[in-house]
């Protein structure tokens, strides 16, 4: 696509951007529709349709309970999308606050919070998930909070390094000279300049959040049936990988397309100098 197209004074449309938008659209739009309407009720079982192959009525065929896979994928992708975004938002907001304070002040606060980060990193995520499930119970919302908390350290680290880089900039000094209090300097002056780095890491974070949720479902402590996320559908479909690969392909491809689409958008956000 190196041919130049005549548009305003910006580099030609980026191949990645188009692919990113198309992929995200293919996945996000059906999942939004899934909130209100799905071709079939994703939970009704029908023993005659057990393991039915794709047909006109059931575009993606039926699973081992005779449930329509397309409806489940639509419902599942909504759950995965919500959990992914919820986790990233939770981790990002708290991570930013932690990162801001450690980066800006340094000294003991930095030392303490960095120690907590190291502790969170070396604590096996499975044990962490078990503790959360024990305390909060399992289910969509609990999983989101559990994963969100596990994501705080990585965001804290990114924001901290950005703040250390920016805090010696001249415009930060002049903000102080203009009488701005520390909090104002941190969140009104410095934060907008890390948005771009944060945005791209948020989108990569989404990718990891979705994969982590799938991992939890793999251990059976993630989303509870008959609710389903793409991740849990994937782990359930693994047992039928030989005889009915389609069962794994449908959620698998949707998951990869969703993650791929959003990652490409992430690259675009990051690429915009």
């Amino acid at each position, binding site marked *: 696509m190196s041919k130049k197209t005549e548009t305003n004074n910006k580099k030609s449309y980026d191949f990645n951007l188009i692919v990113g938008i198309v992929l995200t659209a293919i996945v996000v739009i059906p999942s939004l529709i899934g909130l209100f309407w799905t071709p079939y009720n994703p939970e009704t079982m029908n023993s005659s349709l057990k393991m039915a192959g794709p047909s006109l009525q059931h575009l993606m065929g039926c699973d081992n309970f005779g449930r329509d896979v397309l409806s489940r994928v639509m419902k599942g992708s909504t759950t995965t999308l919500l959990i992914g975004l919820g986790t990233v938002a939770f981790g990002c907001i708290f991570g930013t606050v932690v990162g801001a304070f450690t980066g800006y002040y340094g000294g003991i606060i930095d030392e303490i919070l960095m120690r907590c980060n190291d502790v969170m990193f070396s604590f096996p995520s499975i044990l962490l998930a078990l503790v959360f499930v024990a305390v909060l119970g399992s289910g969509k919302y609990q999983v989101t909070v559990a994963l969100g908390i596990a994501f705080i350290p990585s965001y804290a680290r990114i924001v901290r390094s950005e703040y250390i880089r920016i805090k010696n*900039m*001249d*415009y930060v*000094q*002049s*903000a*102080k*000279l*203009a*009488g*701005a*209090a520390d909090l*104002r300097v941190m969140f009104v*002056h410095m934060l*907008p*300049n890390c*948005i771009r780095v944060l945005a791209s890491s948020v989108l990569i974070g989404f990718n990891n959040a979705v994969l982590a949720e799938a991992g939890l479902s793999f251990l059976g402590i993630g989303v509870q049936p008959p609710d389903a996320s793409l991740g849990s559908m994937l782990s359930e479909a693994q047992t039928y990988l030989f005889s009915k690969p389609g069962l794994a392909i449908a959620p698998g491809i949707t998951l990869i397309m969703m993650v791929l689409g959003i990652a490409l958008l992430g690259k675009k956000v990051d690429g915009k100098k």
Partner: protein
Amino acid sequence: MDKILEVKDLHVSFAEERKSLFEKKKRIEVLKGLDFHINEGEIVGLVGESGCGKSTLAKSILGLVKPTQGEIIISSKEHPQMVFQDPKASLNPAKTVRFILEEPLRNLTDMSPEERFEKAAEMIEKVGLSKEYLDRYPDELSGGQRQRISIAASLMMDPKLLIADEPVSALDVTVQAQVLELLKELHKSLNLAIIFISHDLRVVYQLCDRVMVMKNGLIVEQNTRDEIYRNPKHEYTKSLLKSAGIGL
């Protein structure tokens, strides 16, 4: 003319990272005892090579750096402001010009938004830019325009003392001339005292009434401009003048 700033026996030193566990904590002395004063409405040039402590002096006057010894006396409600050297880094790229100008008013006064907007519009015209620049972002401005904006920002609180840390050295010659012109006018119209930090002796000659020459943390010579340029006493001042191609 009464003194607007008085500096008595000013010392500033930083703790250096300890090389090894046993070594006593070394402190590097940056300012080794400075004594000078600035009168109201006076432009004083501060000349010296990089690393002689010019910027540290500026920061300690502004209160950004705590002096380890000596005092800095500034008259009452005064908020000294500073104009930085690198136009690219001196303005917050994520904020509009209007936000940057109104920032000091928002923090230090209880002006209403309209009043703040008026003051900003008035100030931006004073530095020779039209009102619609208010809604631009720093990236959309040239080096010269950005320096004008940071000068405007530093004058929002009508300070009596302005510190300019090499404000023009990063600009093209023609633009340099215009900014210097602006500083001269503001000095006259607002009776503004300016500490003009620079390593370019020719620019200092054009602008300043008095000149102070600094060499690694000490003021080696301070005198009126003509005295310094016509019969420099200190060896170091002479070598500076010679390398700038000025003098006898």
